[in-house]
């Protein structure tokens, strides 16, 4: 009993000591990565099939497997850090993680804070509705007439907020922002919302998981190219990552991954 409490106390002291040490800034993140032999990558493992935690508790998904290959080709170990989606950009910005892969779409506001790699995939937005949905959506803006659900902090959230709410097309009270996208799906099922605005790939995944949903509209709104988020102004690292992405694209590696994860 004594030993256990001593061990716990030590553990706690070590943890708090670690918290107290901030990570020092290096000149180029690429140098730092190669010196350490490890790249620390942040993700928010709640967005299947891009990234999720599988039944045995391991990270899995399109982004995860892609990043594993990129790290292999950089000849460094890969270390994952899972954090809420909202905090990934801040973490890259403050140098707490080396880069982040989490189905990031390019946006101007994000580009002010961090850099983006070349796109490794292109996605579309989708409007997911219940099968008995009777409304008509011909233009993207028509969705403003319905009760919408989004995952908080995504580009879809951004699009609805700026293009629909700020533009005066809909009331903010008709938008529900969810912590996770499957919570939105449950509310779609319960009929509290009418449309989920999401990336089309996870939207299709939800369709498969829940059943009784359909996609009524697909287009690039704010989405489009998906990129890896890199620290601002580190061109060495950016070039290295871009060249590997180019390699993987020409070898057909990424297409194979897309087939594995995105087609049923």
């Amino acid at each position, binding site marked *: 009993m004594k030993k256990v409490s001593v061990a716990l106390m030590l553990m706690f002291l070590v943890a708090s000591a670690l918290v107290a040490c901030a990570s020092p800034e290096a000149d180029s993140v690429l140098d730092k990565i190669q010196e350490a032999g490890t790249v620390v990558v942040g993700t928010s493992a709640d967005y299947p099939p891009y990234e999720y935690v599988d039944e045995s508790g391991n990270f899995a998904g399109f982004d995860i497997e892609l990043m594993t290959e990129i790290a292999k080709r950089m000849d460094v170990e890969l270390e994952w850090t899972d954090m809420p989606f*909202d905090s990934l*950009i*801040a973490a890259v910005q403050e140098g707490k993680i080396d880069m982040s892969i989490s189905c990031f779409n390019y946006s101007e506001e994000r580009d002010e804070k961090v850099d983006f790699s070349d796109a490794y995939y292109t996605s579309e937005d989708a409007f997911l509705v219940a099968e008995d949905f009777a409304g008509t959506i011909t233009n993207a803006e028509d969705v403003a007439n319905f009760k919408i659900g989004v995952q908080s902090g995504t580009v879809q*959230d951004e699009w609805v907020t700026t293009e629909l709410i700020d533009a005066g097309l809909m009331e903010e*009270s008709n938008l529900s*922002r969810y912590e996770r996208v499957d*919570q939105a799906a449950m*509310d779609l099922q319960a009929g509290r919302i009418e449309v989920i605005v999401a990336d089309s790939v996870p939207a299709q995944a939800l369709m498969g998981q829940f059943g009784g949903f359909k996609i009524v509209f697909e287009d690039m709104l704010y989405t489009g190219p998906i990129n890896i988020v890199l620290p601002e102004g580190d061109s060495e690292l950016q070039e290295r990552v871009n060249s590997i992405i180019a390699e993987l694209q020409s070898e057909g590696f990424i297409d194979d991954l897309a087939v594995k994860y995105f087609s049923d």
Partner: protein
Amino acid sequence: MSDWLNLLIRFFDDFLVGAGVTLELTAIGLVMGFLLGLGLALGKVYGNKPLCWFSTAYIELFRGTPLLVQLFLIYYGLPSLGITLSQTLSAYLALGLNSAAYQAEYLRGAILAIGNTQMTAGRAIGLSRWQTILHIILPQALRLAIPSWSNEPILLLKSTAVVFLIAVQDLMAKAKRAATTTYNPIGSYLAVAVVYLVMVFALNALLKWLERKARIPGFEMEGKKGSL
């Protein structure tokens, strides 16, 4: 620091709206919890066997499970039984039902402290059982319960902070919004932490004041000396 102040200024209106929602949730949860809690307390002390058993089970179950689970059960669970409540209504209901269990225990303690003598005295002058409870016991018990009860509003205010998880736009949801817009989660949550602190302090001061008010000489109950 100046970044942080900018954030606070930029989202100040937003935080105020969120704080308003939080206070509303607290107030409605408190009132619902009080009415239901009073019923439960009376049921446990004076009810017949099934009523007493029900009250006890209710109190134990609601105090023995996390509020968040109760919230999800109401919000996501009930629709599969055909009951679909709105986000705000679900939040009110979860907070009210949860608080009722705690408030029932405060009230029950006070009722027990009044003791059987008051019941006997009431019955002796020809009042019915429920008349005695209504006119003799409750007026004393409610006053007696004030000191221990006055923890509940603050506990409830703090526990409302989970409702953002069912997309209710309370103060915590506003913090999330600020976090995703500014990419500064720590600063955003610190900002609302300050707002919560201010609300808790203000509420605390208000309750202290009310408690003093309730202690006006002449309104003091003999039963106050009872072991609470």
